[in-house]
């Protein structure tokens, strides 16, 4: 019985929330997805967000909440982005470039 249980197919790995076309995204697609994600999770109208906006200002977040944004990006794109690469980054366009480098 134990062997049967151990041999069950492994559950799908949910480590990546969004596997689709990770390696095929253009920089513009990455940027658009980040803006969509920020709009959805931080309750700011999508049309109010522009690529060069300061996301701390536009999303009204502090450095701790920015870590939540980082986690959401990592899960969405299936990448890891070290905090030190985010140091000094405050606009969506640069954020998207950092993500794109890891795709």
């Amino acid at each position, binding site marked *: 019985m134990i062997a049967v249980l151990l041999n069950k197919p492994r559950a799908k790995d949910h*480590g990546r929330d969004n596997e689709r076309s990770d390696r095929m995204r253009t920089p513009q697609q990455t940027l658009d997805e980040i803006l969509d994600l920020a709009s959805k999770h931080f309750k700011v109208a999508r049309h109010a967000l522009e690529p060069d906006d300061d996301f701390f200002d536009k999303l009204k977040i502090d450095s701790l909440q920015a870590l939540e944004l980082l986690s959401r990006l990592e899960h969405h794109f299936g990448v890891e982005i*070290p905090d030190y690469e985010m140091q000094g980054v405050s606009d969506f366009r640069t954020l998207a470039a950092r993500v794109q480098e890891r795709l």
Partner: protein
Amino acid sequence: MKEYIGQALAWRQVDGAVELELRRLPCNEIGSTTLAELELLVAALETVRDSSHALIIYSSVPAGFCAGADLRELYAGMQEVPSSAERTAGVRRFLERIHAVLNAIDMWPRPTIAAVHGVCFGGGLELALACDLIVADRLARFCLPELRLGIVPGFGGIPRLKRDVGNALVRDLLFTGRSLNAVRAHALGLVSQLAGEGAALQLARSTARQIGKYDRDTTAAAKEFIKPLPREELQREIDLFCRLLARPAVEASLRKFVTSTEVQPYLP
């Protein structure tokens, strides 16, 4: 167990498990108030050893589990004491007290569970590492950022992370100062179970209920067998922390950090 509601902590017994709530804004920074209340908790735990089957530690603060040691209090304390030797002695006394508390939690014979959401940094991760299991919200993040300020973790984080996960992860987190997301921490074995957003405490409670079904003495014997306290390394960590803290460059880094008004506080 009598319910306790303090400034930084609260605890109560729920369905046979002791629940420790971290409740100090902004993000449960560990300073002298938290330490004094943790010492009260440890005394209280001894009185319920036979009537509890688990300890759950969670935070009711939205920002996260714990952002680490209270560096503002540390820096202010350093400014009040002009003598380097006296400063070091004061820090050492604090560290020895926090080590005694975390060692007691580490070795408490009942299983202990940290229910983590949001930020679990520095001393916060060291508190979580004193627990037997870490269950984490998918958005939680784990970090040992101390080297970015010129010090090492001082609450026992290095020996415990080495004991529980491994030396390679200790080096990665220490040398880069980066934070790990919960999914990655789960893959590495630091986190035992992942919870959905906002569900870490619920998951910890269901885990505690399962633990409560087993014979307590057997569980205690298993814990004693598998979880040795790395006493010698813990002591050496205190020595190293005190030695590094005494350098002028560390005081300068702390000053930059605690006086920063930027949205992203100073971190090299």
